[in-house]
Structures are given as C-alpha cells and as structure tokens.
C-alpha cells in the first residue's frame, strides 16, 4: 500500500513538466506578445498621447483666454474709473460755472436795478424841472390873464371881483 502510493506519486510527479506544454506556452505567449506589441500598445499609447495633447492644448487655450479676459477686465475697469473721474470733474466744473453764472447774474441784476432807479430818478427830476418851467411860464400868463380880467372888469365891485375869480378858476378847470 505504502509502496504503491509512493510509486504512483513517482509516476505522476506534477512537478515534471510536459515538454509539449512548455513549448506551447511559449509559442502562445509569443503570439500574444507580438499582437499586443503590434496592435494594442500603439493604439492605447496613441489614445493616451492624443488625450494628453488635447488636455494640454485645452489648458493652454484656457490660460490664454483667461489672460485675455483679465486684460480686458482691467482695461474696462480703468476706463470706468476714468469715466467716473471725468464725470466728477465735469460736475465740479459745472457747479463752479453755475455759481459763477449766478453771481454774475446777481451782479448784473443789481446793476440794472441801480440803473433803472437812477434813470427813474433822472426822469422824475427832468419832468419836475419841465413842470416847474412850464408852470412858471403858465403861472405868469395866468397871473397876467387874471390880472387883466380883474383889471378889465371893474375892480371896485367886490361881488364882481369874486365872480371874475370864480369864472377864471372854472375856466381853468375846464381847460385843464
């Protein structure tokens, strides 16, 4: 029994290789190796490198775009700041101008008012002078007229005198 078992194990030692299997393993592995080397590895490597290139290209493009956008933004911000500055300047200027105009206007109005008042005064003075002059002349005439009337009528009758004066005054009123 023991002997038989040992003999059997000796006859079927699994460590002793089958020569055909060794050769076949190498042959089939060689076939697989060549197929992998010729088709699989180049295909995957190409896919890898294409992807790497695409990603790197994409990243570079994105970076360029980003830089461009940043530059644009800075420019716009600068423009905006300039515009704000300009607007503030214009506002300030306008305020100054307005103030100047108001002051000027006030001055002008003051001058005009003064002028008008002066003019009025002058005119009134002139008219007064004229009135005085004409009055003086008229008073003389009137006095002369009145005197003539009084003299022409008899001056002795006091009643008549009064009538003459009244009539004269009525005439005067009617004339005026």
């Amino acid at each position: 029994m023991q002997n038989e078992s040992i003999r059997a194990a000796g006859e079927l030692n699994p460590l002793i290789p089958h020569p055909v299997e060794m050769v076949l393993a190498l042959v089939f592995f060689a076939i697989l190796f060549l197929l992998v080397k010729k088709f699989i590895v180049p295909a995957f490597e190409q896919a890898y490198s294409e992807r790497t290139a695409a990603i790197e290209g994409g990243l570079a493009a994105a970076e360029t775009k980003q830089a461009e956008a940043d530059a644009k933004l800075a420019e716009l911000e600068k423009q905006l700041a300039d515009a704000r500055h300009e607007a503030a300047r214009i506002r300030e200027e306008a305020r100054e101008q307005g103030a100047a105009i108001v002051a000027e206007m006030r001055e002008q109005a003051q001058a005009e008012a003064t002028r008008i008042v002066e003019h009025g005064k002058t005119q009134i003075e002139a008219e007064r002078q004229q009135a005085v002059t004409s009055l003086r002349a008229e008073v003389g005439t009137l006095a002369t007229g009145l005197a003539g009337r009084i003299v022409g009528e008899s001056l002795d009758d006091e009643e008549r005198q009064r009538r003459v004066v009244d009539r004269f005054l009525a005439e005067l009123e009617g004339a005026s």
Partner: protein
Amino acid sequence: MSALAMSAIPTEGFTPPGPGDFNLPPVGYTSETAPTFEFLGQTMYLGVTKPMLQLALSVVVIFAFFYYASRKRAMVPGKLQFVGESAYGFVRNGLGRDIIGSHDFMRFVPYLVALFFFILVNNYFGLIPGLQFPTFSRAGMAYALAALSWVVYNAVGIRKHGFAGYFKLQTVPGGVKGPVLALLVPLEFFSNILVRPVTLALRLFANMFAGHMLLILFALGGEYLLLHTSGFTPVAGVLSFVMFMMVCVLEMLVMALQAYVFVLLTSMYISGALADEH
C-alpha cells in the same frame, strides 16, 4: 496511468483527488486509449489537451478584448475603451512605470501587459464553468513563463552592463568589503540568478495546483457524502459544497494575486537588472 494513480489510495470507496486529476487525457481520447510517450521517467499523453486549447483560447480572448477596446481611440472613452484603458494602464503604470522607472519602462510594457493578462485569464479559466481548469496548474506552462522572464531580465542586464558588469551588479552587494564578500557573492548569485526563476514558477504553479485540488476535493467529497452515505453525513456533504463556494471566492483572489505577483516580480527583476547601483 491516471486511473491507476487515482485508485492508488482507496479509502472506503471514495477516491480522493490526486495529481492524476491534472493529467487530462487528450481531447477525443480516454485515459485508456490515449497515445503516450516517455519523458524524464514519466509517461505522458501525446495529443492536444484541454490546457493547451485554453492557452490558444486565452490569446484569442485577450487580443479580441483589447483590440475592440483600443480600436476607437476616442478622446472621451466609451465603456469598453475605459475598461480596456484601465486594465492596460494598471499594468503599464502600476507594474511598469512605477517599478522600472519612467525612463526605461516603455519598451517592457508589451511584455508586461501580455504576461499579466496571459496569466490572469489562464488562471481564471479555473473558475469558468465548462473550462474549470487553471492552465498554470500544469507545471510546464509555469516553468516556460518563468524561464522567459529569467531570460528577459538577465538579457536586459547583460545588454546594459556587459556580462561581467551585470554579474558584478547582481552578486556583489554595494558597501560590502573584505572577506565577507566570499560568503555573500555565492549567496547573492544563488538567490538572484538561480532561485528567482524557480520561485517564480513554483509560486504560480503551486497556487493554481493547490487551489484547484481543493476545489476538486470539496466538489467530489461533497458529492460522495451526499449521494453515497447515509445518516448524518449528507449534511457534511452540504457543508462541503458551501466550502466549495467559499474556496471559489478565495480562488478568485488568489488567481488575480498570482498574476499580479508574477508580473510584479518580473518587473522588479528587470528594474534590478537595469539599476546602476546595487
């Protein structure tokens, strides 16, 4: 022959699985009618066996998968391409670039990729219904791949450092001087040149062999306990089937791990052979 071996250890009518279960007769023959030949004191079947066909099948399966996965080369990968790229990238980057270094690894990528998936798929044949035979439980297959890796890493080293330079690199540890060298040089030679291919081959072969043996044992044992015994023992048969399933799950892990370790070590040997300093 195998029938004789299987009946060699009879135990109460149950024939436990043995090495004979791995010595499958060629396709179209039974163990009695198959032609045989003698090799190294062993009687071997002459003809096309299942593991041989599995080798061919694995080449077809692997190439078909990767060919269709890599055919489109789309910038944004689809599902198949994504899986293919992930699998390829796992070996390319994880076992190639990270270990050999980004300078030299690219020329070894085809070898490492082919090797990893060749071993992986052939291992998983051990669990695929209908096949259920891990190809590398045949020692010769594992020997062949280990020998190839041995040739590759030694050739790479000799080509880079020259014959003497390479053996100095592999056998003389850096920073060691004096008579200790007399002790270390043979040891290093033994471990780096002689033992490496043996461990590489045996690790793969023994794991596959033992794993498959365990599966056969639980399957046949379960069947025997369930059908050919009475009393409470059929319950043990059910337990045996449960164990069978658990071992299947374990084997899934072991199969992937062995493919990984084999390629990882190959990669490390190549890396060591290319190194400038020990």
